[in-house]
């Protein structure tokens, strides 16, 4: 068993900031989407920010510190299943960083959120609000994108619920303080933070171009 202190050393500051910013924005997007109407302006801004965050996380998955890299936590099906069996046997495996199952969950959530934010750009609410790229495609495409946006939202609710359930299971069932490790985390060199800021800025610039500059008539 690895002590919570060792667990806590996995996440660099940018990864933690990314995680909690995403958490807040996903909840905010869900609520504003349900409220609709005047909240759609904020719903869309939230979506753009999520898109920029995902862009950053993808880059960070290649250039960030080892535990944040995809190559370090994406395992084959055999390893993932073996990990699942360890859990079922009642062990308390606590690899620093993502466990094999959690690693795939990261990819799943990033993919679903990218799909959700991406389809949102082409969606409308059939009242007064439409994504910045809706005017660039046919009405049939807008309807299709809007429908997908509606379905993925349901899938995301399930996936997020599973994620929270898994965290509660580690926290309360296995007594591994995974929440703390996502809060306290590893000491991060200023150079790493600067690199992250550069990639986040680049990602934000790409999204800004996509949702503001490119759609301008």
């Amino acid at each position, binding site marked *: 068993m690895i002590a919570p202190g060792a667990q806590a050393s996995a996440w660099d500051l940018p990864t933690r900031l990314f995680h909690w910013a995403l958490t807040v924005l996903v909840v905010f997007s869900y609520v504003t989407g349900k409220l609709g*109407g*005047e909240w759609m302006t904020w719903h869309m801004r939230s979506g753009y920010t999520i898109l920029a965050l995902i862009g950053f996380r993808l880059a960070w998955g290649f250039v960030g510190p080892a535990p944040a890299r995809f190559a370090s936590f994406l395992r084959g099906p055999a390893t993932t299943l073996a990990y699942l069996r360890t859990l079922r046997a009642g062990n308390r495996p606590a690899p620093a960083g993502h466990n094999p199952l959690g690693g795939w969950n990261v990819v799943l959530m990033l993919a679903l959120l990218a799909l959700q934010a991406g389809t949102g750009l082409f969606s409308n609410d*059939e*009242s*007064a609000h*439409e994504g910045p790229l809706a005017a660039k495609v046919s009405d049939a495409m807008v309807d299709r994108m*809007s*429908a997908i946006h509606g379905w993925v939202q349901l899938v995301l609710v399930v996936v997020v619920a599973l994620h929270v359930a898994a965290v509660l299971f580690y926290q309360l069932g296995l007594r591994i303080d995974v929440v703390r490790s996502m809060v306290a985390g590893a000491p991060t060199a200023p150079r790493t933070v600067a690199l992250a800021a550069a990639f986040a800025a680049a990602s934000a610039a790409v999204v800004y171009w996509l949702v503001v500059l490119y759609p301008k008539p």
Partner: protein
Amino acid sequence: MKTVLLALALVATAAIAQAQIKPETQVKLRKSAYSLMNYSFGALDAMAEGKRPYSKDDAVRFADLLQQVSTVPKTMFGEGTDKAGETRAKPEIWTHRADFDTKMNKMIDEVANLAQVARSGDQAALKRAVHETDNACNACHDEYRTKRQ
């Protein structure tokens, strides 16, 4: 007197619409009305949100168009229009008619208010009126229109 005549004319128009227009045509007409409402209201919302430069003249023009068309759908949900041609109107409209009519009238009232507010040239008030109208529109969409598949 004028009001009474106007009321009579409106009732008569509604009665004529229900009685004479084929269900298929009613569906076509209400969808056309909604398209124009979407066009005019979309422009007003863009103005309210600062995505389109504000102009009082434009606001009045779009609000007037919106108001003129806003009373059309109410008269086009007659008998047999639940499955005449392609429509996303839910059958609940005809089983919860009183509630549907209340929501429809609320939208018509909000649009009428919006048209008045547009004349005032008060941008903050316009924004509020746009939001109220948006909510009134969505109230019906959420309950009485099937989602896109």
